[in-house]
């Protein structure tokens, strides 16, 4: 409660209006307050309760009240009598209303007088200051709202943008994919289109090479053929790639023989590896079944690609291909773990003699393929090998067989930074690779896709300048043995080398294991020794076995173990032993060499030389040759005399030559092959003998004869034939005994085999020529061409 002004001294407070009313008398209009707080005043003289007659200062009262009510600001009040609205009478308040008029509050007052109206106008006496808080708060709130609104707006916009971007990306992605597919299709179509004429070119080149060419021409044609084949291979790779991308590559499932596929790949690369002096070897473990079901072409493609890469990038050392059954590889993993547990030191140790226990003695990239692990694998197989040879291993009962193939080489390796990109298509280690080594970089990506299609994985370990080892797994199905027996059944059964014993001298265990594998495929049991001295000891000790065994002994010696004077020493030693009866006969000595140059350095006491890489068939052939079993195999060779015999047997042949001696000799030669020969001594005689119809199947015509030479005679014969053919065509064509066309194969016999003669021969209608005197091979080729295609109508 504020203190009133000093002029008045409140005495007490009368709280009720009702009390005031009671004390009211005829007063002039007074303000009507609802809860009036009446203050009893003391005047100077008397203190009386009740109404003091004097007019007290209502204005001050009001002001005090207002002050109390107003708070911070002074309020001014005016009361008007607005009975007459246009003329408000001021009842209370300053005469000149001032104060802050714009902000005024008008309220009606009711004093209870029905005839008069009053209103009260309250206003601030001063213009209220701009309330700072009243501004800042709303503006703050406003700002906050704006910000919030902005955030929401921004969020929404962003969301919209992102969605828009996403949509655009989707579109672009679809476009990109479509473009990719289109590219593949385009590539495939174009490649296919290119392939057709390319095949035509290659076909023509083949035919060209079959004709007679001189050396330069042959060289050019062969080069063109090589280039054409390379181009076709490239196109096929690209087509493969397109097929894979389109998801259309299918893996076949046919039974095939694993080992023969590897032999094929070996033979493909054998000449190249020999040239470079690299040792190429293949080892297939015994546990791998003979025949499996899968896709042989694709499998071969993968191995060809890997071995091809190895051959390309290796300058020295070895390339070693191993095929194992996957259950063994777990043991390899364990073995690796063991060596790792022993500490890395054991891996880092270089063997004392400087060579590593690998195929060629050079270090290989993958420690897992070290000799220790290989030995583990081999020793694992040994006791079971007898069981395995006869049929399926009994332990496996699932029908899937997983193989692990690894190709190890000692080449230049792959640089570390390029190692992640190795399987990306068209990626080569660096830009100079294509220039230096050739290739496009597509092979490995195709191999990877193929491996994955076969349900396997491909991986590699590579150390620069040491080498690389690529490993992949593939899943095949077991194949039940075909009831009729595989015609290409194990070589050991068909060859006479079955049951032979051999001694192998090789200082490197890995290599000797490989050689042993190949020999065992032929049915030869092998014992290994590291040096020649040890072999000789073994030979001398094993007299008992040798005497009892009937089969000849073979000594196979690796080129590395061969020292220059060795052949003489060996030969002498062996002869000595034979003479004193220690060995029944001198074993054949066979040398195994890697390259052509080594072949020449061989001494004279070596019976034969086998070139690496070893393949079962080449080994068999060499052994047969060395052991003098060649004659048995001859009949199978298509170029042998027996074949010629079968070609010519019973055929009627006319020989025309003016020289009696030549005639006699030629007739004799042909008769040897079983042909029925008639002789004519001049062109005229020949013509008379060849009057149609005649029974001759072929005619050998001497070119240079007096009176009518071979060309003229042939021309006449062709003339006769064409006349007869025309008559046949015009006449009855449905007589069964008539031949469709008369064309006697006429072969010229000539001493000079020059181009001009050949052209002349062809011009007058001859079919081919042979040289005089007969050379078997040429005769066979010439005769085969005509007699094989002729129908046997008159035999």
């Amino acid at each position, binding site marked *: 409660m504020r203190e009133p002004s000093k002029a008045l001294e409140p005495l007490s407070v009368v709280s009720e209006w009702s009390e005031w009313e009671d004390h009211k008398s005829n007063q002039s209009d007074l303000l009507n307050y609802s809860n009036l707080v009446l203050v009893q005043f003391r005047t100077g003289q008397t203190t009386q309760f009740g109404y003091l007659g004097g007019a007290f200062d209502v204005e001050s009262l009001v002001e005090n009240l207002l002050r109390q009510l107003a708070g911070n600001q002074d309020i001014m009040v005016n009361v008007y009598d607005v009975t007459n609205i246009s003329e408000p009478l001021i009842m209370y308040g300053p005469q000149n209303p001032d104060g802050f008029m714009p902000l005024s509050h008008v309220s009606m007052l009711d004093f209870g007088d029905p005839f008069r109206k009053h209103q009260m106008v309250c206003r601030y006496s001063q213009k209220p200051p701009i309330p700072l808080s009243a501004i800042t708060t709303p503006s703050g709130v406003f700002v906050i709202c704006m910000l919030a609104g902005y955030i929401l707006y921004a969020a929404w916009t962003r969301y919209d943008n992102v969605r828009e971007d996403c949509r655009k990306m989707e579109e672009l992605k679809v476009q990109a994919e479509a473009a990719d597919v289109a590219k593949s299709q385009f590539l495939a179509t174009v490649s296919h289109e290119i392939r057709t004429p390319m095949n035509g070119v290659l076909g023509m080149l083949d035919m060209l090479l079959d004709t007679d060419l001189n050396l330069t021409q042959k060289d050019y044609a062969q080069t063109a053929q090589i280039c054409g084949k390379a181009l076709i291979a490239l196109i096929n790779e690209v087509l493969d790639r397109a097929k894979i991308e389109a998801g259309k590559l299918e893996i076949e499932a046919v039974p095939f023989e694993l080992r023969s596929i590897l032999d094929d790949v070996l033979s493909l690369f054998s000449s190249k590896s020999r040239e470079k002096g690299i040792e190429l070897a293949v080892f297939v473990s015994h546990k791998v079944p003979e025949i499996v079901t899968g896709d042989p072409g694709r499998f071969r493609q993968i191995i060809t690609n890997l071995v091809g890469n190895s051959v390309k990038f290796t300058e020295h050392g070895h390339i070693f291909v191993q095929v194992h059954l996957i259950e063994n590889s777990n043991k390899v993993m364990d073995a690796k773990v063991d060596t790792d547990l022993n500490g890395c030191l054991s891996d880092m140790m270089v063997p004392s003699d400087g060579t590593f226990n690998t195929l060629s003695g050079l270090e290989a990239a993958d420690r897992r393929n070290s000799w220790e692990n290989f030995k583990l694998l081999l020793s694992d197989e040994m006791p079971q090998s007898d069981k395995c040879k006869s049929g399926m291993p009994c332990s496996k009962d699932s029908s899937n067989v997983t193989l692990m193939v690894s190709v190890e080489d000692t080449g230049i390796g792959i640089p570390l930074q390029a190692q992640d990109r190795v399987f990306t298509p068209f990626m080569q280690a660096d830009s100079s690779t294509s220039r230096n080594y050739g290739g496009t970089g597509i092979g490995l990506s195709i191999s990877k896709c193929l491996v994955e299609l076969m349900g396997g994985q491909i991986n590699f370990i590579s150390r620069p300048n040491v080498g690389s080892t690529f490993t992949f797994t593939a899943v095949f199905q077991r194949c039940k043995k075909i009831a009729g027996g595989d015609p290409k059944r194990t070589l050991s059964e068909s060859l006479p080398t079955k049951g032979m014993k051999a001694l192998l001298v090789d200082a490197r265990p890995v290599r000797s294991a490989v050689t042993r594998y190949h020999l065992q495929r032929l049915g030869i049991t092998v014992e290994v020794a590291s040096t020649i001295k040890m072999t000789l000891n073994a030979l001398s000790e094993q007299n008992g076995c040798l005497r009892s065994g009937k089969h000849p002994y073979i000594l196979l010696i690796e080129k590395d173990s061969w020292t220059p004077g060795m052949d003489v020493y060996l030969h002498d030693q062996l002869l000595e032993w034979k003479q004193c009866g220690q060995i029944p006969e001198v074993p054949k000595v066979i040398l195994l060499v890697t390259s052509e140059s080594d072949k020449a350095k061989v001494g004279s006491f070596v019976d034969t030389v086998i070139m690496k890489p070893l393949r079962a068939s080449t080994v068999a052939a060499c052994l047969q040759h060395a052991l003098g079993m060649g004659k048995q195999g001859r009949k199978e060779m298509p170029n042998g005399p027996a074949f010629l015999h079968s070609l010519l047997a019973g055929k009627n042949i006319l020989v025309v030559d*003016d*020289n*009696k*001696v*030549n005639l*006699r*000799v*030629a007739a*004799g*030669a042909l*008769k*040897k092959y079983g042909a029925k020969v008639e002789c004519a001594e001049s062109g005229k005689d020949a013509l008379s003998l060849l009057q149609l119809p005649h029974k001759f199947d072929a005619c050998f015509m001497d070119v*240079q004869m*007096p009176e009518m030479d071979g060309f003229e005679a042939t021309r006449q014969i062709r003339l006769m034939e064409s006349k007869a053919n025309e008559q046949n065509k015009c006449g009855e064509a449905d007589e069964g005994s008539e031949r469709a066309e008369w064309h006697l194969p006429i072969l010229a016999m000539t*001493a000079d085999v020059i181009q001009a003669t050949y052209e002349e021969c062809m011009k007058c209608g001859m079919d081919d020529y042979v040289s*005089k*005197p*007969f050379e078997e091979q040429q005769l066979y080729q010439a005769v085969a061409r005509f007699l094989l295609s002729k129908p046997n109508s008159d035999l």
Partner: protein
Amino acid sequence: MAPTALQEKLNGLVNSMFAEGLLDEQFQQLQMLQDGSNPGFVAEVVTLFCEDSERILAELTKLMDQAVVDYSKVDAYVHQLKGSSSSVGAQNVKLACIQFRQFCEDNNKEGCMRALNVVKHEYYHLRSKFETMLHLENRIQAYETKQQS
């Protein structure tokens, strides 16, 4: 003489002919053509060869004696002789013929005369050997037929 000794003598003769270069592989081919079905093949061919060669040599001598030599005819005959000698495997004769033809092409009369003499010389040398050979063969054959009968 015992047939084995005869056979050995025959073999020795033939081998010496090979060694001297009188005969080459073609003769071996001829020998291979002779078998049970064709017993006298070599003898037949050799006899034919000798007859034919003598005929040709006579003709050649006649031609070369003429004042103006008809080289084309000479060439034709020499060609024939060359052909037959190569069929038989008479190496030296064949080589001599080749040389003869060369001189013919050059129209070198003196060279031709000399070549002709060489050919004759070679031929007669060969012929005498052939005669011995055939003689031995006949004796072996006679002995064998005597054995069989």
